[in-house]
């Protein structure tokens, strides 16, 4: 690719088996820095597993995963997160009994260097306070600041999910079906939110809604039966006969 700058994410010959079942058959994937990359494919193609492998939720059976040139395969999720990669979840995964404010604040703490501090008053940390407030603004939940996350509406929880994901300031963002289950209007709002919040960062997104995919992504990779069968610009993917056959064809029909 362009010059010496390492790719934001690079998967080389990554395999994952559960027992004797191979879920991921030798996956190769490159996501350049600053790119908005969409990962698409039919159900059960291994998209979520790929996310789980990259974010450290699962360990690959073999192969190499690099984050900006650094090997991260086999690292624990928090180690990968500290290296600047953050992910969201398909099923909303927030801190249910804590308020929106506290949810976002927890996501900011490590990035602001608080670590496991037990000698500081959390309300008296200006940097934490300001960053949390900014994220709260960004996801448009200022009015719901003091509501426990478990009591938010579905769309609000999804917004909070994205907020938690980007709050730490990670450079590489993985979003797992951020618009799943949303209405048209909600989806539109979510897409513009994602576009704004990932400005200047690398985004890898799993999405089923093709209008979102083609509207948002610079590049698209197609995953079928645990293998990337095609990778390219939206136009290239649209014109790719293999993709049409495996995926878009049935979708269009």
């Amino acid at each position, binding site marked *: 690719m362009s010059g010496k700058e390492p790719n934001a994410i690079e998967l080389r010959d990554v395999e994952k088996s559960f027992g004797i079942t191979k879920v991921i058959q030798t996956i190769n994937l490159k996501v350049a820095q600053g790119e908005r990359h969409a990962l698409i494919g039919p159900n059960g193609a291994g998209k979520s597993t790929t996310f789980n492998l990259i*974010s*450290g939720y699962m360990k690959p059976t073999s192969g190499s995963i690099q984050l900006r040139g650094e090997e991260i395969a086999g690292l*624990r*999720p*928090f180690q990968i*997160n*500290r290296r600047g990669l*953050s*992910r969201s*979840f398909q099923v909303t*995964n*927030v*801190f*249910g*009994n*804590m308020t929106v*404010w*506290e949810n976002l*604040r*927890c*996501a900011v*703490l*490590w*990035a602001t260097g*608080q*670590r*496991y*501090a*037990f*000698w*500081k*008053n*959390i*309300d008296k*940390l200006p940097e934490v*306070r*300001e960053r*949390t*407030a*900014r994220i*709260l*603004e960004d996801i448009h939940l*200022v009015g719901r*600041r*003091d509501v426990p996350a478990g009591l938010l509406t579905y769309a609000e929880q999804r917004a909070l999910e994205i907020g*938690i*994901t980007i*709050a*730490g300031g990670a450079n590489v963002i993985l979003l797992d079906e951020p618009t799943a289950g949303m209405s048209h209007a909600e989806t539109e709002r979510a897409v513009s939110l994602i576009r704004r919040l990932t400005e200047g960062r690398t985004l890898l997104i799993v999405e089923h809604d093709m209008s979102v995919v083609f509207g948002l992504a610079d590049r698209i990779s197609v995953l079928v039966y645990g293998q990337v069968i095609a990778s390219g610009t939206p136009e290239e993917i649209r014109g790719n006969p293999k993709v049409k056959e495996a995926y878009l064809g049935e979708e269009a029909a």
Partner: protein
Amino acid sequence: MRDITVSAAPPPPALADKLKFYGIWVGVALILLLLPKILSSGGSLTTFSLIGISIIFALSYNILLGQTGMLSFGHAVYYGLGGFLAIHAINFIVGHKFPIPLPLVPMIGGATGLFFAALIGWVSTQRSGTAFAMISLGLAELVASSALILRSFFGGEAGVSANRTKLLKVFDWNFGPQIQIYYLVAAWTLVAVIAMYALTRTPLGRMCNAVRDNPERVQFVGYDPHVIRYLAFCFAGFFAGIAGALAAINFEIANSAYLGAVQSGTVLFAAYIGGIGFFIGPIVGAIFVTFLSLGLSDVTPVWQLYFGLFFIAVVMFAPGGITGLLMMHRPLLKGGTMLRVLPSYAVALLPTLAMVIGLMLAIESTVHYTVNPSENPHIRAFGIPFNAASPLTWAAALALIVVGFALARLSWRRVGHAWDEALTTARQNGVAA
């Protein structure tokens, strides 16, 4: 941009709030100071000392259960070891004539609790949930059984004793009289409570809550949940050690019961009955459970059964504990609809009480037959005389239970309806206001 950002954050507390906040602490300190002036009998001073110790212990337990979501069945280990080390320390200090006064000895207990929590915690906090609960139980059994084997340190069945009055005097106090012990315990309780409250408001404290809510997600915001659980475990061990040392000072003895299963169970009962969802919950629970065990054991030989049944009832019907029940009413009080539910409470209370009395009658009569059947059947329970042999008693018990249960079910359902209505109205009032 900056202005907007600041307005999005919660406003800093107003002066009135700050005054209220510090006022509460000052008020508590004053009450602790003046309490012995009002109730000065030796018995009540002992009770207050026990309550103070129990408060520290229950709050330390809640660092695990309420704050971090770790259910421990072996918290008494750190309490007990703190107690033993405190006794040995007193003997050592007296023996070597070190210039260390008694009020500093609880620190040794705390350090002991911290040390063993740090030692044991790393392996046991690897797991969370049910596995952690079972591991804490197994390790507690290990320590408790080992204590019986290592007789020269733990003193076997009899335990180890010490004389607390022989240490360096502070302002002419030798800590012989109970009033001086009361003030010692009260001071330590206040300090420990403030410290544990402060802990909840630190980055670590908030991350503990995050681990409680969703340990999985914590990993994806850069934190290792194992480390958070471990640190919480160490803090809990530290404060438990302080409580254990105070108990050892109070009784001038430490024995294997300190670190046994009963002690671990009692602190769990206290914290849960008080309510683990609020900081003040375990304090309420510690006061309540201490009074209950002191009071019940005087009036009935099977008080532990009542205690267990009461705990089951709390788990089933009021999982928020006493504090949770009280806090539920806050929106109603604010919305001004509290009066709508009170009549339904009164209606429901009657059959519930009848059922409970029937149950107690049945239990006490059964106890009479199994424990001392040959004695006079005219017995007293809770100071009320009745004839355990009379079929009338049995019939009354049965009728009270059956009728009470049926009516209680009905009336509590009505409480539910009244409650829903009151809450809805309260919310509307809130929106209007």
